[in-house]
């Protein structure tokens, strides 16, 4: 009898024991820092005493949020982020899909080389990529300017106000395509060959094969990479931040993440930075869940019904 109850209580404990490591890690690494940031975002320093005075930390409620959201530079920074995402996400996705389909279709010794050379930019750190491209954009050292001059064309203005978003998006695309391509390519390689044989016997051209058979079958891969790309776009920071010194068109408030960085480390307003960080996190999570929801209803929803 006693042994039975103890076994039962042990059984009741067991799931929690199994969950414990994950729960502890999640608490320590996720909940506590986020909680601390929320706490920070509700406080601020206020001056007491005359003259220079002394700063004291006080509870200010949602004042930081009101202040941050009311700032004139916030909306334009989200606007630039949107402009960047509109260029970056579709281009990075389409290029990745095209490269994956081409690599899947062409079976030659060049495949391996092409695959690696498309993937390599992903391994180049964002800061290095931004510096490298930055110098290629910079008037005076830009090879594109030399080419344009040789052809008698006007010099492209990569770093001016009109071109800067596309220039930064180009750097990000260059880095992101390889990663997306590898995921899609792996998904394509996993498809059974019988499908292709069947399609070919039915008179399917290679083009139709790609559009009608391959693409629909790698939709889960497309959703996954799409998610990564959207999140990557919302988090863009190192490319524009590295190029600040190269372009007059990039200020310290170019995208929301740069505003957070600026507030925390340049103008020393950790409290405002925390409030903005929370706002951006909420926006990113909302955008991700929304996209995931839509995509799942479209793709996986039909799958589970069948």
């Amino acid at each position, binding site marked *: 009898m006693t042994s039975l109850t103890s076994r039962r209580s042990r059984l009741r404990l067991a799931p929690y024991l199994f969950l414990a490591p994950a729960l502890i890690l999640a608490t320590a690494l996720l909940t506590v820092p986020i909680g601390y940031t929320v706490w920070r975002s509700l406080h601020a*320093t206020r001056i007491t005493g*005359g*003259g*220079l005075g002394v700063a004291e930390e006080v509870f200010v409620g949602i004042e930081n949020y009101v202040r941050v959201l009311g700032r004139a530079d916030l909306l334009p920074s989200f606007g630039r982020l949107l402009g960047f995402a509109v260029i970056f996400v579709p281009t990075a996705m389409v290029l990745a899909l095209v490269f994956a389909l081409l690599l899947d279709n062409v079976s030659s010794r060049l495949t391996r080389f092409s695959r690696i050379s498309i993937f390599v930019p992903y391994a180049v750190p964002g800061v290095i990529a931004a510096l490298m491209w930055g110098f290629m954009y910079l008037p005076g050292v830009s090879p594109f300017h030399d080419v344009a001059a040789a052809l008698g064309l006007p010099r492209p203005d990569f770093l001016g106000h009109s071109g800067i978003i596309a220039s930064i998006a180009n750097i990000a695309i260059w880095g992101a395509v390889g990663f997306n391509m590898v995921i899609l390519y792996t998904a394509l390689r996993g498809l059974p060959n019988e499908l292709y044989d069947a399609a070919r016997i039915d008179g399917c051209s290679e083009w139709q094969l790609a559009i009608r058979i391959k693409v629909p079958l790698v939709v889960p891969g497309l959703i996954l990479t799409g998610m990564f790309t959207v999140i990557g776009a919302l988090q863009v920071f190192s490319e524009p931040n590295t190029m600040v*010194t190269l372009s007059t068109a990039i200020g310290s408030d170019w995208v929301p993440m740069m505003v957070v960085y600026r507030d925390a*480390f340049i103008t*020393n*307003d*950790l409290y405002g930075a925390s409030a903005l960080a929370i706002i951006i996190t909420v926006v990113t999570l909302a955008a991700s869940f929304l996209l995931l929801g839509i995509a799942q209803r479209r793709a996986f929803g039909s799958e589970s019904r069948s």
Partner: protein
Amino acid sequence: MPTRRTRSAVLTGALAASALVLAGCSGSDADEGPVVLEYWSWAPNIEQVVAVWNEANPDIQVEVNTAVAGAEITAKLLAAAEAGNLPDVSNTTYDNLPSLIINDIAADVSDVMGDREAETAGPAWNLTTFGGVNYAVPQGTSPQMLFYRTDVFAEHGIEAPTTWDEYAQAARTIHAADPDTYLATFPANDAQLFAALSQQAGAQWWSQSGDAWSVDIAGDASGQVADYWEGLVDEGVVATMKTYTPEWQAALADGTLVSWLGAVWTPPLIEQNAPETAGLWQAVALPQWTLDAPAAGVMGGSGTIVTTQSDHPEQAREFALWLNTSDEALNAYIEHANIWPAALSGRDLDGLAEPPSFMANQPDFYDLAAQIDEYTVEVTWGPNVAAGFDTFNNAFSDAIANGTPFRDALETVETSVVSDLETLGYTIE
């Protein structure tokens, strides 16, 4: 570049001098082992200056941490203050000092500095004293100067400009003669320079009277400077590249820019970017608005603070004082970091009898620096300079890109600085 031999000769001299100091102070109690002070600085070769102290003071050993850049030191100190692990001593720029005071990081150092007013350069004294309390031992001052390429000026038959009108004329002449060459750039990212030029014109961006602050960034004096530069930018006779960027470095080296509104610390920076132009540069006083009443602004400079969390404040103050006022430390500083000391005694040191090596053609370089110090205006930095300068950079980048009035950009900066101060809880007049 100083040769290795001259460097080591100076160090040996300094070591010998400090050995004498060591022989002099024998009464210290060495029962509890040496006191260890942590010191943050971004100055190049600072380890060699500190080594002189460590050699002479076995009881008070100083450990230097140079992993902090001048621009980030405030953020790092604020974080360290919160974590409770502030260093004992740290360098800071003058414009960041007020923010370190209000965050209770910079401690009162009046007991070593209080009676040194007569021995300290005026501009540096003003920048480190608030409400009669000394919060830092000033290291140097940075008299504003105009550096120009003598060869290019001679080629176009231009004299060094003494007024801003002549400066504008020189900009036109040089650009007209060669469309690829500019007298100068108006850098949107250099709020420090614009602030200094405004100070020269009579602006006090921050000032304090009683318990209230007043902010005058968009006033007439700054507006005059803004209009002047806006005119030159609109005419297209000055460039608009940002300073301290690769494009700007290239422009200095290849002669696209033929002058620089800098300060006493400028020569090593030109040397770094355009070493082959050695001997072609000349420093003169800034162009003036009115020649009868010369003035200059404050362009950088730094001092040493003792932090409120130091366990050995007395020793820390002693070290901070030694670092910036003793002959042996200043000799090492002058040798390795090219400073213009705030301690007046330091200005007579042998190292300053000669101009910096890059300016070897101008033997009176440091005499000029001392002269300019005489008419450098009194400046008070406010508690939110970093935020103000950041807004300046963005507002002026936009103004240049969109061709909007510079005065509007100044209004933007002033509005932002005032609302920031009000949010912090200051009374604004």
